[in-house]
């Protein structure tokens, strides 16, 4: 299925940026966890190798073929997510994980890839200049399924990522003003109902402490405050590698996962923040550039959603750790420790490359 011509078109620049970001991640995972048992940096390195292997495996299959099977993929993931709620044991207070002999898998990460493919399949046939309500509702329903299943795990961060895919696809298909108003009204209603019935207390607290972090410095505001202290105390050039007191003395929560960027901010200061953000954003930009190289509508949707998936996580994370967004458990893509998240992001990048490399292929 893979021909030499397409293989030559692989976007090595993007893969280079992908690996560069991942290696930066390994460095800071080491900084934030070298004193803990569990050799996280080494494990993350293994995940990167596995991720690369899976990425190349994905490239071998034409995205058109992947889209053909996307419905089964989507349904399969839904079944796993439902089964997880019924049978899984709580790990870190959520039912997000499948326990396997040597590691744990987070099936909700795979749901992201399934959603990209299924939504792209539906919208590839949609050629009107603006969104019609029938296809809009269809898209909403498709996303709603995994959203609910993941939100009740509870993993609001991943569930919100699904919403970002939905929004991406709707924007691309052409939102009319009327629809925007309608969506705002619906989300407001959902927000009010959700606040009063669905959101857990700790989630509510996270929202309120977003605006008043110092009110409860040892409770929900603790994470934000410690993270801001870490970043702010880093200054222009930082305290030096392995010398961040906030991180090394463990004041910083979830240092090697969600709050890894705070470690960067503390140990390498604003310059480090600037460099790492630029590296991440360059990768996102490189993905966006590929949009214009897609040979068909489906390809555009896939690249756009895959780029938005990573961009959304990136922006939410860097806003969250500095207190501009509620603490929702969204990792920094490619840099935060975690195999499932890393591999799903590798696969998303893989989809972009997959589309781009086949721009000259005959249909």
């Amino acid at each position: 299925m893979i021909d030499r011509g397409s293989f030559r078109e692989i976007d090595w620049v993007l893969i280079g940026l992908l690996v560069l970001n991942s290696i930066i991640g390994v460095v800071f995972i080491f900084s934030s966890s070298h004193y803990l048992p569990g050799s996280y940096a080494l494990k993350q390195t293994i995940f990167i190798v596995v991720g690369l292997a899976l990425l190349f495996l994905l490239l071998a299959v034409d995205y058109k073929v992947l889209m053909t099977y996307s419905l089964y993929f989507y349904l399969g993931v839904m079944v796993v997510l439902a089964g997880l709620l019924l049978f899984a044991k709580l790990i870190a207070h959520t039912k997000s994980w499948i326990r396997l002999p040597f590691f744990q898998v987070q099936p909700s990460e795979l749901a992201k890839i399934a959603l990209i493919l299924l939504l792209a399949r539906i919208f590839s046939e949609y050629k009107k200049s603006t969104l019609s309500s029938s296809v809009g509702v269809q898209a909403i329903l498709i996303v709603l399924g995994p959203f609910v299943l993941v939100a009740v795990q509870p993993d609001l961060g991943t569930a919100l990522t699904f919403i970002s895919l939905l929004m991406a696809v709707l924007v691309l298909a052409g939102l009319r003003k009327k629809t925007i108003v309608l969506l705002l009204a619906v989300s407001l209603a959902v927000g009010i109902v959700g606040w009063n019935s669905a959101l857990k207390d700790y989630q509510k607290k996270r929202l309120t402490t977003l605006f008043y972090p110092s009110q409860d410095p040892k409770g929900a505001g603790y994470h934000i405050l410690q993270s801001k202290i870490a970043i702010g105390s880093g200054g222009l050039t930082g305290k030096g590698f392995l010398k961040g007191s906030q991180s090394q003395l463990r004041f910083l929560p979830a240092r090697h996962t969600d709050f890894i960027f705070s470690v960067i901010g503390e140990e390498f200061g604003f310059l480090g923040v600037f460099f790492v953000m630029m590296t991440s954003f360059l990768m996102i930009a490189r993905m966006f550039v590929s949009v214009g190289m897609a040979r068909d509508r489906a390809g555009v949707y896939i690249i756009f959603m895959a780029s938005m998936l990573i961009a959304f996580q990136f922006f939410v994370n860097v806003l969250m750790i500095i207190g501009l967004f509620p603490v929702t458990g969204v990792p920094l893509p490619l840099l935060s420790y975690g195999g499932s998240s890393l591999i799903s992001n590798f696969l998303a990048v893989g989809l972009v490359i997959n589309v781009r490399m086949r721009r000259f292929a005959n249909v």
Partner: protein
Amino acid sequence: MLRKDRIYEDLSLILKRARIVFYVLAGLLVLIFGYYWKVQILDHQKYWQLAEANRLRERVLPAPRGVITDRNGKLILADNTAGFKVSIIRENIKDFEASCRNTSRLLGIDETDLRARIEKFSSAAAFQPIVVKDNLTTEEVAQIQSRKLEFPELEVEVEPKRSYPFGKSAAHVLGYLQELSPEDFKSGAAGKRHWGDLAGRTGIERQYDDMLTGEDGRLLEVVDSLGRSRGEISREEPRQGKALRLSLDYDLQKKAEELLQDKEGTIVALDPRTGEVLALANFPTYDPNKFITRFTPEEWLSLVSDPAYPLENRAIRGLYPPGSIFKIVMAAAGLDAGFVDGRTAYFCGGSLEIYGNVFSCWFKPGHGMMNLTQGIKNSCNIYFYNLGRRMGIEHIASYARLMGLGKKTGIDIPGEKDGLVPDPEWKLKTSKTAWYRGETISVSIGQGPLLVTPLQIADMVACVANRGVRVIPSLVLPENGREESGKTTIPIKREIFETIIQGMWLSANDGGTGRGAKVEGFDVCGKTGSTQWISTERAEKLQQQGKEVKKTHSWFAGFAPRSGPEIVVTVLVEFGGAGSAAAILAGQIFEAYRMKYDR
């Protein structure tokens, strides 16, 4: 350029939308850089300081209290030992309910007690440790430390702990410590001390609290988010409180306590030359160590509800009628005011009718003709009834006050009582009735509303022993910075005291009521007393009816030797019967003193 060949549908619209989204994201990135710039560059100082404060913890190193010794400085009466205590730090509690439950189980304390304790200090800042259990065993310490990760809110500290090696001995002198209450902090009484610190509540521990407390040290250390130390930055050692040397002679103190065993009463011995208290023993008593190790609720209840009041320092707070001891004051007053002289004699026929009432002598057959010295020796009531009738209450009251009754002696422990010297003015004020003449007759033999503390009696006898020089009793030696006790000479002639002393000498050495106090070769002078709670007539009636008669309190007050007095001893035994019983106890104190300071 190739696009036209390849693309079969018009994607320009969605490509344009994708581009717009990308520009929006790029714009957002610029804004985010701006905000990071603000936090990292503009607000850097603020967060830098927060980070420093985060990792530095100041820890208080409690100073050991000053050691308290007896007068020789060798025997330690209050010491310090190492104690472990565990505190709860509320700001580290994740789930209050679960924490209360688990902590009470881990420490083996009652959950409601634990909650009550945390509640008591709810006004303190959340980072202030609240002591929840102390005197931990090493096993308990190991258990808590090994579960530090589960219980980040618990903190074990070593600190010097007050201990009293002799337990109940001299408890009322030493006093006890109690934890500072939130009110103490609010009122500022706690000074520079910290939550959970113990402070002197009574006795020497209270009076000299500032001196004994010492200065806490300070330790600045780097800690991680679980509060575990990662190294010291600076350390300022605690300074122990000043050592105190009491005036107590522990041999005499121990002897006095032995003598009082299983009685209710008090023994005070002091040096009349300086006012230094050599022994101050009360019984029943309590163990001040218990205030350090905390009482169980039952122990505390039984201590405070004990009808014999073990916590009460009878020597300075017990109010008793002085009984016949007061005849010393009467004699001094009568002689000095010129109502009688050494030769004035009255006839004792066992009873006397005054103002239409019959007043009895304790010796029914009567003493016969009595002069002053004989009256003191035999403690004859009739002599003093006559003297009192002639003098009147105003004279009696003013001489009683002159000799130190009716107001605090000024001893250096808190809580002393004033006692009461009654006069018509007092009566009018308190009961709105006029003084009744018969009351003067009762007061003449130390009965009626007259009330004294055993220490006041000791101080009064010291004044007699000094032939008119009053001293202020004190419990610490002057080297401790105590103000030199002011001696005052009262305006009563020396010969008058010699006359009284002659009577007191006869009482102890010539078969008088105080003969039990006699010590061969030590020239004890003394006076007994027995105070009745009911009149003799009523007691006889009760006896005839076969009912039990409540016994009288037994008093003795005296000094030795007659010339150049070195020791004053006062003994009070509640319900001890006649004064002769107390005299026997006093005799043994004089004996012990003589044996030790063999002259």
